[in-house]
């Protein structure tokens, strides 16, 4: 689960990680009131969406007067912001964060993420803040400092020294501030079951302070149960409504732009099915994993969600039953044809647990637009042909 910048900064502040002062606004009026409350002469109006690249997309702007705060808030609220991380459809901006301006003398980069190979969290830092950090890593990898921290021992003095000397910070007071910054960030990463924290840029001010000017945070979904305060930060408007509806039925759904609807058990086989359709000259309309507990009701729901997409010309049901029993899937397909108007050909391949019973159920039902397939290759070929009207 991801959260907004302003929420990440609330968590930072709770742990004593310094940030500029800011207040969230839902309307231009609130934006103006917030700017007045913050005081000063310069404010930054920042779109709150779950994606990076907001500045380049026009979602982060500087205001030099209260009137300008109103103008910019009015412009940004309600806009559809497209960045390299939103996909071409962009994201609707519903909140803006009004933040005080800062005297920036230097921009750094700092993040904490799990290093899967080392099997422990790693702190990454760079002097090249404010830039596209993936480009920095690709072109000048020596400018990325990596410090792995073993949770068995925690953040030690040497971790801090590796970071500050690596960043070329020589002033004693500044070294101390940066080490505290990183140590607190590591602490909040661990205590909140974070998956990723990224601050880009982390700024040094003219006053010699380090501040998190941005903040991105993602959390381990499996651990949300023990963090009700984090779970309360969930913004469902950032999630796709169809994907969300599917997840309530234990289905994992992602819409794509092709013509063949897919219903598969297991994420790996679901991706493999899409790959096979593509290989045979078709295009998948979605990814749909019915999970390990699929039954008649969830299968019917899956059909309903797939058929909401007007581009779907055929549906390929590909099940290799282990825990999932094929007879239940077959009954689900029959159920679906009663509940939803299934007006496209449905290609069904059921293999594994109770496959013979399932074949019998489908045969006896004798429904015109159900086409059975013997294996994955056969099913994909029939689905591609059906989508082409052959």
């Amino acid at each position: 689960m991801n959260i907004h910048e302003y929420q990440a900064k609330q968590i930072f502040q709770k742990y004593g990680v310094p940030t500029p002062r800011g207040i969230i606004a839902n309307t231009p009026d609130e934006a103006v009131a917030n700017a007045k409350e913050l005081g000063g002469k310069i404010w930054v109006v920042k779109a709150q969406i779950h994606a990076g690249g907001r500045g380049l997309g026009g979602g982060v702007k500087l205001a030099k007067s209260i009137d300008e705060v109103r103008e910019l808030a009015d412009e940004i609220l309600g806009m559809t912001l497209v960045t390299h991380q939103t996909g071409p459809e962009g994201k609707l901006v519903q909140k803006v964060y009004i933040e005080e301006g800062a005297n920036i003398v230097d921009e750094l980069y700092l993040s904490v993420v799990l290093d899967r190979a080392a099997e422990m969290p790693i702190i990454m830092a760079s002097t090249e803040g404010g830039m596209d950090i993936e480009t920095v890593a690709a072109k000048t990898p020596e400018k990325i400092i990596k410090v792995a921290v073993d949770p068995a021992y925690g953040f030690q003095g040497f971790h801090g020294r590796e970071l500050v000397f690596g960043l070329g910070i020589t002033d004693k007071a500044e070294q101390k501030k940066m080490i505290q910054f990183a140590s607190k960030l590591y602490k909040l990463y661990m205590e909140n079951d974070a998956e990723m924290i990224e601050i880009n840029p982390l700024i040094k001010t003219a006053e010699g302070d380090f501040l998190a000017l941005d903040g991105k945070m993602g959390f381990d979904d499996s651990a949300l149960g023990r963090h009700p305060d984090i779970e309360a930060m969930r913004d469902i408007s950032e999630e796709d409504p169809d994907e969300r509806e599917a997840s309530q039925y234990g289905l994992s759904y992602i819409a794509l732009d092709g013509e063949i609807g897919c219903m598969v058990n297991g994420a790996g086989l679901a991706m493999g099915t899409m790959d096979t359709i593509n290989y045979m000259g078709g295009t998948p309309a979605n990814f749909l994993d019915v999970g390990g507990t699929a039954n008649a009701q969830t299968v019917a729901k899956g059909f309903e969600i797939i058929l909401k997409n007007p581009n779907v010309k055929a549906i390929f049901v590909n099940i290799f039953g282990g825990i999932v029993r094929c007879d239940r899937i077959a009954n689900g397909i029959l159920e679906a044809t009663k509940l939803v108007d299934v007006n496209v050909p449905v290609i069904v391949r059921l293999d594994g647990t109770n496959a013979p019973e399932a074949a019998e159920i489908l045969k006896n039902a004798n429904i015109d637009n159900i086409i059975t397939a013997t294996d994955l290759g056969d099913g994909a070929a029939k689905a591609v042909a059906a989508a082409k009207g052959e």
Partner: protein
Amino acid sequence: MSILINKDTKVIVQGFTGSEGTFHAEQCMAYGTNIVGGVTPGKGGQEHLGKPVFNTVKEAVASTGATVSMVFVPPAFVGDAVMEAASAGIELAVIITEGAPVKDMQAAKACAVKNGMMTIGPNCPGIITADECKIGIMPGNIFKKGNVGLISKSGTLTYEGANQVVNEGYGITTAVGIGGDPIIGLSYKQLLKMFQEDPETEAIVMIGEIGGDLEIQAAKFIEENITKPVVAFIAGQTAPKGKRMGHAGAIISGTAGTAKEKMDALESAGVKVVVSPAEIGKAIKEVLS
């Protein structure tokens, strides 16, 4: 021969009396797995499925001589259960449970390594040595005995791959589902090495997915160490680029983890890479004939 487990392996079940644990322990026993008991705290002294229940893994090991544990406890207790198994001298823990917090698995894995215990999973179908021992949730009947080893991140693709190998007239020595969570136990490298050393295994099927760089590391390892033919499929060539928030994940591994990158790396390591899982069986036939 086989790797890791065979008909003599003594297995206990952690989370033995729960509904999942009960159902799958029964299925494993029906397959022939030598389940010698189980652990459910507070139910020690009882009998379940005709086998003794213990309060702790330590008692279970002392009483039964079990060396392998199949873990079915709920997600929030997986870390604890794995550390208990490691501390009690279990040699291999097969963790089936889905949804264990990553932080818990990080600590559990470190504890396992320190105690010399191997782990498989979490969030995986388990491991099966055909016709001898099944520790997991896979449908046993599709794994006919033969000479192909199988390693897969994905559960259902394990079944798909094994089924195709069998349909071409070949069979399986051992199949291992390693799981795709951020922290996993045994991975491609260690298992490839075991299959290389297993005299009965003549070819290896390796099934991967997008994300991470385990398959890239495996490709390097195959190039240097594996002389047996390897067939590979990487799922997710057509998966949409994930909508991401940050960049830190991609920097850390130095790779975007795309299917293409992995397929190219494996291909240049001499692996026979197929573009659809429907081609796995045919590819095995090709490399073995």
